[in-house]
């Protein structure tokens, strides 16, 4: 095992793919000399040169679209969209083009494109740089959606995404880039659509994504002290979704909390709640609880931002509600 930050793990997956494979290249805004707005691509220009580490104009439609066209022509491009808020600018290309080319052509085309993007609250960037939009893409047949929460997962899942023959929207969380953890020496891909159980427990299953995985682990520790045993499961891939693992865990614990940073209303948690009530109805001892952001844009003032997005104590409160200890 070696230690790696989440940021280094993302870079490792891309660099290793680019070393092994001429078809892989990256493009995005400020990714060359500057090394990306989050420093993820630092050093890659020196190693691979400007032809394969392509600095682009501020032009999300064109760079996502160019990624699509290059993928269709046999490359495996990785496009960085600087903030997931800016995915709004590339929605047409992603939803109407990338997701549908294969289908509309009756299976003639594949689009092996990876769109990396990041964001999230916790540092007061304001309403246009902090929201979590992963749920928007879960509604689009033809896309895959990945949201890893640890260095090992981000590296292995990015590797697999690059080599997937479908367009993958790959979410990274801004506050996780500095997170350090052990990663295996050998870079192996992690299969898309497989959840990871971070912590086993008996009383409540918390299904969490991104930053909320870590908040949920903190909540689980506190719950332990209150005599509640919490299982924390990270689906890691939101589309396709490891339904079996999620439902299996709930059947064991009989209680379920879903936690994500994005707005609760119509979020990923709503789909999970529907899934769980349908497939584990007879096992449930309490209503499925959802934890997410309150229904507002992400505000600027730190005290308001902190109020809007969920934290460990919100997860803990939800856990306690499911066992009637609130």
């Amino acid at each position: 095992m070696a230690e790696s930050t989440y940021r280094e793990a993302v870079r490792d997956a891309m660099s290793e793919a680019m070393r092994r494979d001429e078809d892989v290249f990256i493009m995005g805004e400020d990714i060359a000399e500057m090394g990306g707005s989050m420093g993820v691509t630092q050093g890659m220009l020196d190693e691979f040169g400007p032809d394969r580490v392509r600095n682009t104009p501020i032009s999300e439609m064109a760079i996502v679209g160019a990624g699509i066209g290059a993928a269709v022509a046999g490359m495996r491009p990785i496009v960085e969209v600087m903030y997931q808020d800016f995915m709004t600018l590339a929605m047409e290309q992603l939803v109407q083009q990338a997701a549908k080319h294969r289908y509309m052509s009756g299976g003639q085309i594949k689009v092996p494109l990876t769109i990396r993007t990041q964001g999230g609250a916790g540092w007061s960037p304001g309403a246009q740089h902090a929201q979590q939009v992963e749920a928007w893409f879960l509604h689009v047949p033809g896309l895959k959606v990945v949201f890893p929460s640890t260095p090992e997962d981000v590296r292995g899942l990015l590797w697999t995404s690059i080599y997937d023959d479908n367009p993958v929207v790959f979410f990274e969380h801004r506050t996780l880039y500095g997170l350090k953890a052990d990663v295996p020496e050998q870079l192996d891909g992690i299969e898309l659509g497989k959840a990871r159980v971070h912590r086993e427990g008996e009383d409540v299953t918390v299904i969490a994504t991104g930053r909320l995985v870590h908040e949920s682990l903190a909540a689980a520790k506190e719950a332990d002290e209150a005599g509640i045993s919490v299982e924390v499961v990270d689906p890691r891939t939101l589309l396709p979704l490891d339904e079996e693992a999620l439902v299996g865990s709930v059947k064991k614990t009989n209680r379920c909390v879903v936690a994500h940073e994005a707005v609760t209303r119509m979020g990923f948690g709503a789909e999970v709640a529907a899934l769980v009530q349908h497939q584990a109805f007879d096992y449930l001892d309490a209503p499925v609880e959802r934890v997410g952001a309150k229904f507002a844009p992400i505000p600027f003032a730190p005290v308001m931002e902190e109020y809007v997005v969920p934290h460990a104590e919100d997860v803990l409160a939800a856990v306690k509600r499911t066992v009637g200890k609130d």
Partner: protein
Amino acid sequence: MATLEEKGQTATAERLKDFLREMLLIRRFEEKVEERFRAGELPGFLHVAIGQEAVAVGVCRALEDGDVIASTHRAHGHTIAKGTPPNEVMAELYGKVEGCSHGYGGSMHLYDIERGNLGANAVVGGGLPGIVGSALAFKMRGEPRVAVAFFGDGATNIGTFHESLNLAQLWTVPALFVCEHNSYAESTPAKQHLPIEDMTKRAEAYDMTAMTVDGQNVEAVYDVAKKALKHARDGKGPVFLVADCVRLSGHYVGDPQVYRPKEEIHELRKTRDPIELLRQRLELSDDEWEEMDREATRIAEDSVEFAKKGTDPKPEDALKNVYA
């Protein structure tokens, strides 16, 4: 006036006759589409390329093997000109498995990857960024191929157009942007949607090489497309080609064209029909013309027969091809 043959230009005459056959085939095909739509046989809605055949044929005949195109909602002409058999195009319009998109696409999503058609797009301007990316792939791999985007004057108002031209020129990718300037964005005339008259100014803003051609003259389209493709293929950068053309039909089949004076269409049909213009240029005998026409009509009729006998997809196959 001497014919081309009499002037010793047999090769040119033969080439132009080939163009004429192809344009006539597209015309008869499109007329068949209109007829079968009115008969209630074709689902969805349709846009025919009547009047714009010379752009499709002139550009596609100038392409080389390995070049790719992206088309628009008015895609039948481009697709046939790029080499997809009319049978497969018509079968697609009937929603059959034998169609060039196997029934998943329809009139506005004709694909034929083997023949270099990367897809027709029903989002105006939607195909342009992809063409920049395919051209980029060709450049990165050192392949002497060009990627071509067709689009209309209406598309020059949308963001994808500007972002694509900017990026293509910045990266000097081998792309050709063919603007079929028929002066209508659906029903809206150019004077209501274009703040400029000279369309090449669009390219000027990006320092991109621009060329203009009479889109009703297939010979001129072919010649200028050859030049533009060579420029792109030689690594000199993308080209913006404006083909001034006329739509002799409505925006869609059944469009009453209330936005357009009746005399305008009447006059254009008399003076600007690209097939009629080429027929006159070639000074074809009535016999030769009629033979060509019979052949084009036969192929169009056969395509309908082929399509009608085609296989309906299984409803549950709708769930296939969502993912690779």
